[in-house]
């Protein structure tokens, strides 16, 4: 019962920053799908790395197959600000090794902003962990929605563009040779590389 009300209060408290993060999350999800990666990589980025601005940078790095040392350096520089959060984040109110592990893993800007407020000084272990879990859920959920939304809207556009005029190309969909065979070192990552040829050719032939 007590645990439930902690969860409910955590949801109410995290919804403001959660919704603000979700707007960015949707955009990141769309970007991952547009970059040509399978949509579920967006979910993995969001839930495992769980650091908004770094994920945008990381997507650009992996699309050019940057060395892992460069990935590590980027992560270090972008997220160095987190070392200061240990000064005031109430980790001492989160006992247990597993709980501490998750709490430090999910110590995002949003989690810090919520727990550093004066009225958060009375929060117990459950309230802090639920708050972090909801921010995590808002982020990973919105990124997944954005990625799937981009997949669905592309499928819908492809199917709606299959008019009689486009019959010449509707037979050989899902190849997009021009986009996927572009060299990895191209300065700008190929956008819409997964777009089927039917959509491409019809746009050009109009």
């Amino acid at each position: 019962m007590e645990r439930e009300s902690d969860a409910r209060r955590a949801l109410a408290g995290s919804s403001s920053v959660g919704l603000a993060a979700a707007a960015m999350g949707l955009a990141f999800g769309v970007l991952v799908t547009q970059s040509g990666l399978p949509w579920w990589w967006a979910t993995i980025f969001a839930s495992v790395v769980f650091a908004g601005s770094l994920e945008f940078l990381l997507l650009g790095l992996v699309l050019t197959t940057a060395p892992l040392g460069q990935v590590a350096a980027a992560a270090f520089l972008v997220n160095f600000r987190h070392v200061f959060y240990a000064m005031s984040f109430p980790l001492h109110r989160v006992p247990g090794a597993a709980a501490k592990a998750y709490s430090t893993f999910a110590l995002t800007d949003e989690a810090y902003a919520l727990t550093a407020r004066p009225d958060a000084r009375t929060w117990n272990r459950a309230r802090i962990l639920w708050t972090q879990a909801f921010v995590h859920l808002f982020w990973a959920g919105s990124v997944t929605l954005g990625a799937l939304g981009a997949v669905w809207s592309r499928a819908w556009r492809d199917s709606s563009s299959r008019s009689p005029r486009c019959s010449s190309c509707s037979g050989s969909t899902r190849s997009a040779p021009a986009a996927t065979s572009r060299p990895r070192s191209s300065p700008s990552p190929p956008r819409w590389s997964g777009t089927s040829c039917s959509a491409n050719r019809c746009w050009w032939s109009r």
Partner: protein
Amino acid sequence: MPDAAYLASAVAVAAAVTWALRALPFALLVPLRRSEVVPHLAAAMPVGVMSILVVHTLRHTTLTAPPHGVAVGIALATTVALHLWRRNVVLSIACGTLVHVVLAGVASTG
């Protein structure tokens, strides 16, 4: 297209570095808990960190070329004014974001 093994390694590296930056400072702070400086820093840090985040967010805004950061400036002023007036976090964030999205859309299309 990068292969799955490379992508998984890149995600693992980024996650490990990020988690280390978030978790290790706590281990270093334990011996400092008894000092007088740390409680002071703990109290003063939130404002400092939020200021850093604001600068971090705005650092790529160009003031010398059109649109001279007008969209960001107006959106920021809206957020601050609304917050001073209503003291409602959701309202300030939502309206400030909306103003910026609308202005950025206008600036990029026309």
